[in-house]
């Protein structure tokens, strides 16, 4: 009995060199294929199941971009003219998030340091997130901090600033509602102040610089240091001890930098704060 089962199986999964005109045998083989596939329930053959799906999705995508390309023409404006600056001059739409941040920061930060931090921050995610849960399935509860932080950065900062930059920024980089008349002469009187003036110190003095630098550094380092002290030192929280100082500080500095961008935006919008810190050699935040 056992003997015959083995023979049947070896033949079924066999080498396919049998006589093809023998329909019954082929059917039998196909049935065996299905039976075997069921015996290992989580696995299916790539051919036909995945290849078929890829073919369908691929066809749909190609049909979609073909129709799109027939219906909508790519823009082509007047020839390049270096002497005629359009107002507003906009970067390509996928960089408008960065251009939007230029309202709040000097270019060295908004255009160079911040994108670098974003790229590095994305790259280190797998190495700082040591939570083993939520690998390979959608969930929220198991990794609420990671997901909330990512959603806040991706949707709340990146996507939303791209949308603002694309649709509601007009001449002079002022806000215009969609459809509103673009008045190229629009100006808004703003009296910007620097952070240190709230303490009665002019920002271009050494004391002003020190106040600014201390505030910025204090913001970056202070809260995470307190949090570490509470969680790891006082309460000996197992998660924080496992995370370790290095991973904790990389996470914390990236997180506080992201929040710092938001804080600066709020300070600007609510109190017209231009610079937190006015440093030497254009080193301003």
């Amino acid at each position, binding site marked *: 009995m056992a003997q015959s089962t083995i023979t049947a199986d070896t033949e079924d*999964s066999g080498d396919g060199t049998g006589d*093809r005109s023998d329909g019954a045998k*082929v059917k039998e*083989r196909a049935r065996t*294929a299905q039976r*075997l596939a069921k015996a290992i329930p*989580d*696995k*299916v*053959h*790539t*051919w*036909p*199941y*995945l*290849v078929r*799906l*890829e073919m369908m999705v691929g066809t749909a*995508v*190609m049909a979609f*971009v*073909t129709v*799109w*390309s027939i219906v*909508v*023409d*790519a*823009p*082509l*404006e*007047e*020839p*390049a*003219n*270096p002497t005629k600056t359009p107002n507003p*001059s*906009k*970067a*390509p739409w*996928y*960089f408008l998030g960065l251009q939007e941040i230029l309202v709040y920061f000097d*270019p*060295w930060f908004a*255009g*160079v340091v911040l994108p670098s931090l974003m*790229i590095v921050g*994305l790259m280190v995610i*797998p*190495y700082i997130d040591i939570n*083993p849960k*939520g*690998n*390979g*399935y*959608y969930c929220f509860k198991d990794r609420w901090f990671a*997901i909330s932080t990512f959603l806040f950065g*991706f949707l709340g900062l990146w996507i939303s600033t791209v949308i603002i930059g694309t649709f509601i920024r007009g001449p002079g980089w002022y806000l215009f509602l969609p459809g509103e008349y673009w008045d190229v002469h629009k100006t808004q009187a703003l009296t910007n102040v620097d952070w240190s003036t709230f303490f009665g110190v002019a920002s271009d003095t050494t004391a002003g610089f020190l106040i600014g630098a201390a505030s910025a550094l204090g913001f970056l380092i202070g809260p995470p240091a307190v949090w570490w002290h509470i969680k790891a030192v006082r309460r000996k929280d197992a998660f924080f001890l496992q995370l370790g100082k290095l991973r904790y500080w990389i996470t914390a500095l990236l997180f506080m930098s992201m929040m710092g961008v938001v804080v600066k935006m709020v300070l600007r919008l609510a109190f017209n704060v231009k610079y937190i810190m006015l440093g030497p*050699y*254009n080193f*301003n935040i």
Partner: protein
Amino acid sequence: MEKKGWFDVVQSSYVWKSIFRHEYQDTYRNRVLQISTNVFLHLHPTKIRRHALRLRFTWCMGGITFLLFLILTVTGVILMFYYRPTGEYAYHDMKYLQFDVPFGMIMRNMHRWCAHAMVIAVWLHMFRVFMTGSYKPPREFNWVIGVNLLVMTLMLSFTGYLLPWDQLSIWAVTVGTNMGRATPLLGHEGPFAELLGVDARYDARALLTAGRLIGPATLLRFYVLHCIFIPLLAAILMIVHFWRVRKDGGISGPL
């Protein structure tokens, strides 16, 4: 013996057999050979976990990104036949493509819209990979490769943006590359650049734009980056990316 249909005749011919080293019948063995004997399909394993098929899981976004890259390669090569990256010709070649070249307009449209679509697709792909936690062990490094692919995709789009040589492109690239001059130490308006003595002709931005102004030299530089350097780099990274997906045990999933 039954009479053979034409399909059987073709299939049992010498030539056919020299091309396909397996038969077509739906057998276990042929399903496997179908994948493993085909150089393009063998990017896939012969069997995959069932949930990897679910569109709800992957949104097929990685695959769509790759397909868009392929479409961009094909339409891009066609555009290259008609386009010359010089100050005199670039803009006129765009007009020529639009009005004179048969199917020129639709090739240009497809190239442009697929480029936009690829940026969106790669964002969505990253979003889904994050939401399914697929960067967790053993896939940490493939996520890093992915971030590099994201940067490559944006750089491809950005360098291509200049090539039509119209007002839209020159000013968008001006705004974009102006960031370069604010690079700390290396850009002539950046913090501490004074200390290094960097000036407008020799700084980070001038390296990218081939000089102080966005001009014909910039056009050539962006053209070479756009058509050769970055696509090659991106293709190599994609090879590594796909290889790693397989070596890390296929698509992630609940254990």
